[in-house]
């Protein structure tokens, strides 16, 4: 009794496994996932995506939601719940992507035996039904019925070899069987393509695990930036230049960077948008730029509470503003009104309340809320994206595999021909992948074989 229950349980377990296997190895699932991923990606392009900055901060996220509520109205909360404001990072989208990778793997494993069969020994001798029922077939009477079928076999082998077929021959009494395979090995193209999807996943995951990104690195001219992330070198920005065409369009942005390791300058390079600096696998990309105000702030006791280059890197309306905190929870906000470089607007806050505001001319000192603020000068900062991504070469490997695999699969459709040659009849049957008009090809082949046959006969007569 117990035993039989156990047996049933095993059966149903393997049934479930079978069912899952069939589900994940189905090409319908692949098509569904491909189209679903396409649709979801499109949503991400059409629906405004939340900026990276607000996503980690619930309060800021809610503030941001209120700004898009004007556009999406009551749909806003539904979109937000579904994760549509951050589609590319939401769990269910990642599950779709992983699902497609998994599906690809199972599909490929499922087909592996039949794919690898191209490497093995083919079946040469085929039964009568193939030659009678194959969709693509042809037959003809060999010449010189009285002599052995040698001439026609030789001709077939010659013509097929000339057409890049791999030919296998097997004799049995008076009958000769032949199998010819063209581009069989390119069947493995599918394997290359599908493996590339897994390699791509490995590449992206590696980048995430062993790399880092900081896309908001700000270095005022003359200052040095410590790379961090476990890297033991610094980068100094000597100069930043933005050039414009006469019509005001940007012409060129570049920064002169110096890599410093163990206190020594080890590398100098001018970087542009298309020419990043790379050192020890870390790349420095020219990304943005902006103004810097050199400031000195003394409190009422004459003590220096701030003296540095303040990058005006946050945007507020049309102005670039720089924010720094002084002692006693006082926050200083500086901006260049109307983009000019001669006046610096300074506001002082404590919590949410404004303590004081004022304007300082270039090279002058002004008392603002009890602080002596000196506007010493302006310069620029360069904004860099600093990135280390050891997964990149793997991504290129995957890309190459994908393109090569797709080309092999699409451009080298496999053709197979079986032949049975007796004294009375030569019967041919064949199959081909996809859009090959194989019936026509086979008929042309028969024509060539017959011509070849005549030649072989001729030369034999002469020879004999």
């Amino acid at each position: 009794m117990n035993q039989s229950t156990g047996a049933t349980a095993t059966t149903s377990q393997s049934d479930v496994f079978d069912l899952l296997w069939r589900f994940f190895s189905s090409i319908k699932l692949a098509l569904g996932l491909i189209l679903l991923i396409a649709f979801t990606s499109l949503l991400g392009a059409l629906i405004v995506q939340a900026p990276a900055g607000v996503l980690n901060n619930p309060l800021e996220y809610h503030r941001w939601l209120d700004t898009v509520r004007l556009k999406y109205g009551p749909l806003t909360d539904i979109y937000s719940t579904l994760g549509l404001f951050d589609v590319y990072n939401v769990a269910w989208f990642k599950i779709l992507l992983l699902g497609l990778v998994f599906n690809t793997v199972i599909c490929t494993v499922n087909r592996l035996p039949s794919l690898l069969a191209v490497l093995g020994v083919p079946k040469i001798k085929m039964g009568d039904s193939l030659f009678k029922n194959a969709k693509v077939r042809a037959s003809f009477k060999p010449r010189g019925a009285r002599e052995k079928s040698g001439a026609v076999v030789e001709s077939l082998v010659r013509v097929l070899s000339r057409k890049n077929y791999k030919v296998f021959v097997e004799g049995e009494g008076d009958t000769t069987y032949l199998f010819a395979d063209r581009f069989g090995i390119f069947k493995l193209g599918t394997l290359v393509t599908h493996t590339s999807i897994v390699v791509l996943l490995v590449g992206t995951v590696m980048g995430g695990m062993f790399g880092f990104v900081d896309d908001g690195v700000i270095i005022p001219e003359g200052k040095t930036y410590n790379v961090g992330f476990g890297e033991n070198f610094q980068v100094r920005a000597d100069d930043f230049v933005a050039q414009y065409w006469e019509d005001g369009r940007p012409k060129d942005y570049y920064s002169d960077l110096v890599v410093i390791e163990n206190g020594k300058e080890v590398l100098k390079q001018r970087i542009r948008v298309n020419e990043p600096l790379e050192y020890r696998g870390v790349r420095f990309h020219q990304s943005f730029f902006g103004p810097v105000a050199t400031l000195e702030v003394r409190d009422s006791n004459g003590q220096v509470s701030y003296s540095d280059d303040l990058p005006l890197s946050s945007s507020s309306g049309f102005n670039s503003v720089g924010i720094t905190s002084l002692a006693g929870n006082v926050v200083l906000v500086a901006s260049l009104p109307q983009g000019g470089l001669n006046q610096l607007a300074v506001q002082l806050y404590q919590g949410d309340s404004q303590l004081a505001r004022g304007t300082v001319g270039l090279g002058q000192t002004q008392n603002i809320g009890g602080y002596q603020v000196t506007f010493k000068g302006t310069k620029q900062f360069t904004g860099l994206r600093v990135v280390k991504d050891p997964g990149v070469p793997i991504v290129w490997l995957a890309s190459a595999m994908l393109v090569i695999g797709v080309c092999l699969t699409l451009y080298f459709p496999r053709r197979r021909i079986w032949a049975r040659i007796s004294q009375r009849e030569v019967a041919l049957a064949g199959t081909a992948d996809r859009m090959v008009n194989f019936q026509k090809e086979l008929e042309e082949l028969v024509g060539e074989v017959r011509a070849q046959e005549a030649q072989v006969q001729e030369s034999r007569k002469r020879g004999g």
Partner: protein
Amino acid sequence: MPFGGVSLLFVSSALVALVVSVALYIFYTITKHEDIGAAGSIIAWLGTAFLTLALVFRTIASGHGPFANMYEYSVSFAWGVTLCYLLIERQLKSRTLGALVLPIGALILAMAAHGWLFNIRISSDIEPLVPALQNNLLLTVHVAVAIFAYGMFAVAFGSAIMYLIQSGSMRVSWLPDAEVLDDTSYKSVMIGVPLFALVIILGAYWGNVAWGRYWGWDPKETASLVTWLIYLGYLHSRAIAGWKGRPAAVLLAIGFAAVLFTFFGVNLFLSGLHSYA
């Protein structure tokens, strides 16, 4: 810049030639008069030659490949569509598709040259390259390959639409057989899909050099991926019994809508890193 002016002149001549050839192709499709068809082909080749010259002069005048803004990109797109069509026409030895595919090229060209007709503004001024585009080799290869892929997808679209007509109950005797059309679509996609994969990969490579990441879900990147996925879906759909034929042809129509969205929509309606072209 006299070369720029010459280029504009060639664009106008090409537009006239294409419109005339479209009329001849339509007339040919209905009457099956071979001479008219041959005349249509010759004038379409002439139009393509004009476009080639227009692009050459534009390149001389601007000093960079004709891919720097919407205008140049559109003229190149129209060139790709007509050239791909004419090459496939020679391969197929059949002219009927032209009545559907060449108007696509003519429309895109009309949009570039006379955007006001469609209520959009596309400036034909020669503009210098913005810093991100200042990589002549990648710019040329990336966009040139895209143009050919788009051209192939346009041909696939034309034959898919005809397939939808021919495989239904309203067969038209003067159009090609459904089987031939299906074959044409498949062959065009066969060329288009690897080319477009290459476009996306070259874009990713460039993105990695210029912006420090190979993928960032920028609207143009996303739209290209969506487009490619639709054609990938088409290729897979042919292995599924129920999807062969009409559903696959519908996918091709959607695919071309995605091409147009990637090409025009992203630049006109969405903002992103690609908003210069």
